[in-house]
């Protein structure tokens, strides 16, 4: 096995491959930063260009793009509360408050290093797991998906510490919205009122752009000033600070990477779930969960590690069966096919060097992109000092166009605006946005998997209790619910007492 690993690196470390890797990385960084564009768009754009390239070079280019996109997304998430890609919405939660406190550099530095480490851990996991990839994919069927979705919903609901009621309400709202659209299992449209655009349900990326970017732009224009009022802190931004934080919180990094790797390998669940799940679990494990959402650096490290870890493992179902884990993987699949590499059970045995080379390309690009992020930390942080009167209209326009550009639907822009207003109202009236996002993403999956499971189990609910992975997942859910509830019970009393005494 080691020789194939090394064979992969060797093929990658050629001048031409490295050049294309660097090109892919630069494009990935840029596309990751602009909301609405992302890995999928970048790859789709480059696909015709790869036509004349050798398969391995095309893979180096693709790996370059895919490895760098998350870093690009983190930067705008932190500086402008604008998730460059959907998973980066989790980075906004604590990254942006840090930027507001003048600590954008710290956040970007931490994100960059968490990115790199998450990417490396993800890669190693993939390399280790690739030989049994097929069996792994087959382990997760509709019953497992349902329980996984439930687990995701439960973790995020309990993550809104101190505001559980509002967190649940946000989650409920997200679920209700997720049921809009054509029902794949039973046929028939729900809550679309004849609007064709809603046939596919509420489009996720435009909704996220609205919920985070537009909402924050509204907030900024109401508040006035710049993103950060703390010019002094911004000017002393250093590269090292963020790096140090990541190493200081190494359990968080590990946890995030693990969650990212596991969740990323499950097709259809995707980066958003990985990022938010990692975030929620870190909140739960923390000793002062109330500090999250207000600029806790771990709230940046956790999702960032997960996002990059997932990139590697998302390849597993893609390569093993040709099931893309998401839009980016779908386009990547297209590139593979274009170059004569049919994903499927045979691919792993027929194209081993190429695959390992790709995985290394991903990792290398991820590390390089993080490095570049670190290099430009100071000038990037300066964006937080730009006056909102100039920043807001520019960001709004770019966000709207990005939203439109996803699939050239002008309705995306309307949806973004609507969610922008909703997002602002949620900020204003203090309802957490974290649970809305997770519910939006998982709601439809949970329902679909549930109905499918019943069909598979001939209508018996036992289908959820007789399969091994299901049993593990149920145990996880129960553990998650009961353990913190007891701990939280005591903690809430304590914090209420403290709150009364130490009110700001």
């Amino acid at each position, binding site marked *: 096995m080691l020789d194939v690993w090394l064979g992969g690196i060797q093929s990658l470390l050629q001048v031409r491959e490295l050049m294309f890797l660097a090109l892919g990385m630069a494009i990935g960084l840029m596309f990751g930063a602009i909301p609405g564009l992302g890995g*999928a768009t970048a*790859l*789709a754009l480059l*696909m*015709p260009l790869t*036509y004349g390239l050798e398969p391995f070079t095309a893979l180096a280019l693709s790996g370059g793009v895919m490895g760098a996109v998350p870093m690009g997304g983190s930067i705008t998430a932190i500086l402008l509360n604008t998730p460059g890609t959907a998973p980066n919405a989790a980075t906004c939660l604590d990254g942006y408050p840090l930027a507001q406190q003048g600590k954008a550099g710290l956040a970007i530095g931490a994100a960059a290093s968490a990115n790199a480490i998450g990417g490396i851990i993800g890669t190693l996991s993939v390399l280790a797991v690739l030989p049994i990839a*097929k069996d792994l*994919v*087959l382990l997760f*069927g*509709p019953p497992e998906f349902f329980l996984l979705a439930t687990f995701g919903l439960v973790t995020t609901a309990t993550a809104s510490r101190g505001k559980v009621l509002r967190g649940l309400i946000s989650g409920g709202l997200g679920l209700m919205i997720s049921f809009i659209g*054509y*029902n*794949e*299992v*039973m*046929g028939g449209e729900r809550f679309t009122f004849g609007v*064709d*655009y809603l*046939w*596919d349900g509420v489009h996720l990326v435009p909704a996220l752009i609205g919920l985070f970017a537009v909402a924050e732009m509204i907030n900024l224009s109401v508040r006035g000033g710049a993103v950060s009022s703390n010019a002094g802190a911004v000017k002393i931004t250093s590269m090292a600070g963020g790096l140090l934080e990541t190493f200081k919180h190494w359990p968080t990094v590990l946890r995030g990477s693990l969650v990212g790797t596991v969740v990323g390998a499950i*097709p*259809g669940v995707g980066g958003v779930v990985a990022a938010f799940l990692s975030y929620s679990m870190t909140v739960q494990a923390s000793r002062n969960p109330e500090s999250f959402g207000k600029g806790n650096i771990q709230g940046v490290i956790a999702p960032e590690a997960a996002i990059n870890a997932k990139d590697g493992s998302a390849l597993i179902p893609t390569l093993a*069966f*040709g*099931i*893309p884990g998401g*839009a980016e*993987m*779908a*386009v*990547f*699949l*297209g590139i593979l*096919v*274009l*170059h*004569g590499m*049919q994903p*499927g*059970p*045979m691919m792993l045995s027929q194209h081993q060097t190429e695959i390992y080379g790709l995985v290394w390309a991903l990792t290398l690009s991820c590390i390089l992109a993080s490095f570049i992020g670190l290099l430009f930390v100071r000038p990037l942080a300066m964006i937080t000092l730009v006056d909102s009167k100039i920043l807001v209209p520019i960001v709004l326009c770019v966000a709207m166009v990005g939203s439109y550009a996803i*699939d*050239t*639907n002008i309705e995306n822009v309307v949806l973004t605006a609507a969610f922008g207003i909703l997002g602002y109202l949620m900020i204003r009236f203090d309802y957490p946005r974290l649970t809305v996002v997770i519910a939006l993403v998982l709601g439809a999956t949970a329902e*679909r998997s549930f*109905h*499918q499971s019943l*069909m*598979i189990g001939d209508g018996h609910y036992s289908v959820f209790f007789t399969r091994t992975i299901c049993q593990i997942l149920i145990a996880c859910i129960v553990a998650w619910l009961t353990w913190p509830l007891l701990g939280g019970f005591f903690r809430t009393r304590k914090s209420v007492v403290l709150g009364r005494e130490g009110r700001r």
Partner: protein
Amino acid sequence: MGPGERRHHARKNAPTRRDLIAAVGLAAPALLLSRTASAAQEDFPAKDITFIIPYSAGGGFDNYVRAIAPVMEKYLPNKVSIVPTNVASGNGSRGINQLYRAKPDGATIGIFNIPGMFILQQEGGAGYDLAKFTWLGGMGHDNYGIGVAWGSPIKSVADLRTLSQTRPVKFTTTGPEGTAYAATLIGAELLGIKAQLITGYKGSSDYVVGAIRGDGDAVVTTLPILRRMREGQALRILATFESHGSEKDAGDATTLGQPELGQIVLERLIGAPPGVPTRIQAILADALAKTMTDPQVVAWAQTAGVDLKTETADEAARIVRDQAAFFTKWKKVLIAG
């Protein structure tokens, strides 16, 4: 030189001034005519051509279009780009609608999933009429077949029938608007298998993996997918819906006594909006036909394992009519299912 000039020239006498004037008088309109004729031929294409793919990037149809677009450019009279454009939404209906309403000047063409687009039209409210499109040709088709998990105890279609007498056979498939769904329902009906469809799998491979996993007993899907999975020892092919099967050890439409199964196919047709002038249709259809035989495309088809049996514009139109008739006939079954 016009014919008048040559006759003059052939005479022993030198051309008189009147001859020359006559010559110019004859030549001028001839020259003018030929210039306008070639100008008319050269004015299309005048700008880039948009090639609409009604699905998102990375899917099967997307691959096909992106493989042929750069090659097709070479066979157009003028140098323009063919830009593959994804217009994904509504299971393909948005892209086809956009094509339907585009200007019929040849600057927009698109790829169609037949019968997918017909099923959508039949459901109602699709907003287009397949019969009215200007057809340019096709990129071949896939036949369907039945597969079971490698280790499944089911060995033949007869086994499936026997099983269905005790309980419905579970087929994993896409949502009710998908082509696999229709293929499964109609195929099961024709073969006399009582079927229960486990619907809702998203995407083109999800439901196949569902069968491999054991969520269902069997799956009806296209042959390329079946073959790929069989190569990796994930699925066994029980039967193909071809009239003469290409798989040994598997039944086909003839041996199963159901020739109609051969009409369950996935066609990839290429068309333009209604009302495109015949002249432009001919240019596009010709370019498409030449693209299909281009060595670059043939090589790609071979490595991608794609059957590139292409159809002409007339054949495409005929296929649309035949498929419409077939699926209208089966409309009741589809709606009931």
